């Protein structure tokens, strides 16, 4: 068990080096001109200013030297200085990461719990109305463009019905809680400020639901398929023969054994949620790394683009690692294979 985990952790640096390299290559090999965004269009004709800017940002060296410099800085936790905010990308990202993580984690909870619930309904009412309805709801989630759903839901629940707040993490004129974890929900509870907590939660509902909805389909499909498989297993016939009720068999035997595959896709789910988060953050003015990434791509802010891509890749790798470990704990066959 320990060997399995250590082996997975040992290759992590290599994987990280791989994604660093890919992120670097993509951001440098392509033709867009970052100088324009640095010095402004007007100064492009002035060779002195251009040369000074290139030297200032290290763009006058050859690509390989730039790569080595970049790696060297990375080792010290330095992702470079953003062209546009002129502050360290590392601190920019750290200050924005909690917002994205809070949104993504709540969405992951909604998606997983919702997916399991719908999967159970589908499997136990196979080919009946409830099954069709829940499968349609799931499919709808993976067919909707999240940025459009965000607009529609904001229009309905905020502008028309007024039951949920508009964009942002908190209502206007409300001060965020003292920074401990960066999660407003957690920090407000730590500060014992219940109204603030409720405000943060009400702002989370729409974006987290929309983000989680896409995941519901993936998970419910998985749960449905694996429950239908399990239902025909011999042990299920045995416990039925013992006289246990259908509901009890479903809950305590079938469902429990059907959940293992769900564990395997949480890593994948996290990556998918980060993708959705970029778009949802844009609609909900959510000050996370997604909206940071969008701003960076608009201004051709290489260090910032690099930083975001890297952090996204790293989060995904860590989530996959965690998935593998949890899976190995839950299912001994994996680590013995």
């Amino acid at each position, binding site marked *: 068990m320990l060997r399995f985990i250590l082996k997975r952790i040992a290759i992590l640096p290599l994987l990280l080096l791989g994604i660093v390299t890919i992120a670097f290559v993509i951001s440098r090999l392509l033709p867009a001109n970052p100088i324009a965004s640095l010095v402004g269009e007007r100064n492009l004709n002035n060779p002195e200013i251009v040369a000074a800017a290139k030297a200032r940002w290290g763009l006058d060296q050859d690509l390989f030297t730039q790569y080595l410099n970049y790696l060297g800085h990375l080792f010290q936790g330095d992702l470079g200085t953003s062209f546009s905010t002129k502050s360290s990308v590392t601190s920019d990202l750290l200050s924005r990461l909690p917002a994205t993580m809070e949104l993504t984690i709540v969405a992951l909870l909604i998606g997983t719990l919702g997916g399991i619930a719908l999967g159970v309904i589908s499997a136990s009412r196979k080919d009946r109305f409830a099954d069709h309805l829940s499968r349609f709801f799931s*499919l709808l989630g993976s067919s909707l*463009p999240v*940025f459009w759903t965000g607009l*529609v839901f904001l229009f309905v629940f905020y502008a028309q019905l007024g039951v949920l707040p508009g964009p942002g993490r908190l209502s206007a004129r409300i001060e965020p809680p003292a920074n401990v974890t960066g999660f407003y929900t957690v920090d407000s509870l730590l500060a014992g400020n219940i109204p603030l907590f409720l405000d943060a939660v009400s702002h989370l509902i729409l974006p987290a639901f929309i983000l989680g909805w896409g995941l519901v389909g993936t998970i419910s499909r998985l749960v449905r398929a694996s429950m239908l498989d399990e239902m025909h297993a011999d042990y299920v016939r045995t416990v039925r023969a013992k006289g246990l009720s259908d509901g009890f068999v479903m809950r305590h035997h079938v469902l429990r054994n059907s959940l293992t595959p769900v564990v395997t896709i949480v890593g994948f789910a996290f990556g998918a949620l980060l993708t959705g988060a970029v*778009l949802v953050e844009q609609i909900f003015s959510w000050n996370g790394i997604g909206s940071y*990434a*969008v701003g960076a791509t*608009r201004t051709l802010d290489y260090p910032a683009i690099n930083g975001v891509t890297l952090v996204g890749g790293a989060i995904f790798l860590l989530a996959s690692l965690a998935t593998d470990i949890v899976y190995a704990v839950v299912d001994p066959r994996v680590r013995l294979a």
Partner: protein
Amino acid sequence: MTAISLPSLAGNARDLWKRGSASAWLRPPMIFGYVVLAFWIVAAVGVQWIAPYDPIKQVGERLLAPSGTHWFGTDALGRDVFSRTLYGARYSLPIAAVAIVVSVTIGSVLGAVAGYFGGWVDAVIMRIADMTMAFPAILLAMAVAASLGPGLNNALIAIVIVWWPIYARLMRGQVLSIKQREHVESAVAIGASGPRILFRHIVPQSLTPILVNATMDLGQVILLVASLSFLGLGALPPTPEWGAMITDGAKNFYQPWIAAAPGFAMLTIVLAINFIGDGLRDALDVKATRR
């Protein structure tokens, strides 16, 4: 169970029709899918005869609510939203289809080569694929699209870069399992060359799961194209692309008709494709191998 279902995974395109009864191909959700998809294909081809107005020119007052003259209203520049939505079919569907075809081709060839030859070729190709897949799709696509500059063609390149590893991985798995079969062994015995064995005897047998996955992915790629446009990295104004139209709609939040039509159009087409893909998967009994 495995012994029975494995052979049924193999088969070339002609065999697709033989397997599964006709009713498996004509279940209600799939029929809905065919009809909606056919509608959009007709719209994309014949839009200049169907659309009531020019999609680029100002044809009425600004921000008109839906009415008899402008079914879905007009946008901030006085353009007809209904006409623009119909024209949108000319961008989303073909671009997503091309992106998928190119990704499937590149991914399948690389995956097949990796699986057949093994060794360092396999290691290099699959490590690059793994690394690429480690990035959240949109972040990588955004990085590529930003570096190449905005535009639909560059968005297409970005999507191919993000998407090929999925098929490489799928194809490699297929090739690895089919390589063990007897007909391959006989081909080796009569002295067929490596590439000939791979592309005549193995790859055609591996296509079913690839095609089913490609169908299911088409919907996701349509959404990705629109997402990039929504973020300003795909279609440029005044192109009537759905994602870009939704950006216009977001700017005019209190005129909901501007974003409603393109979003609904996208929903119908992606839902249709997902219905078809879901049905195909059931009809052909392909186990979902998603990333």
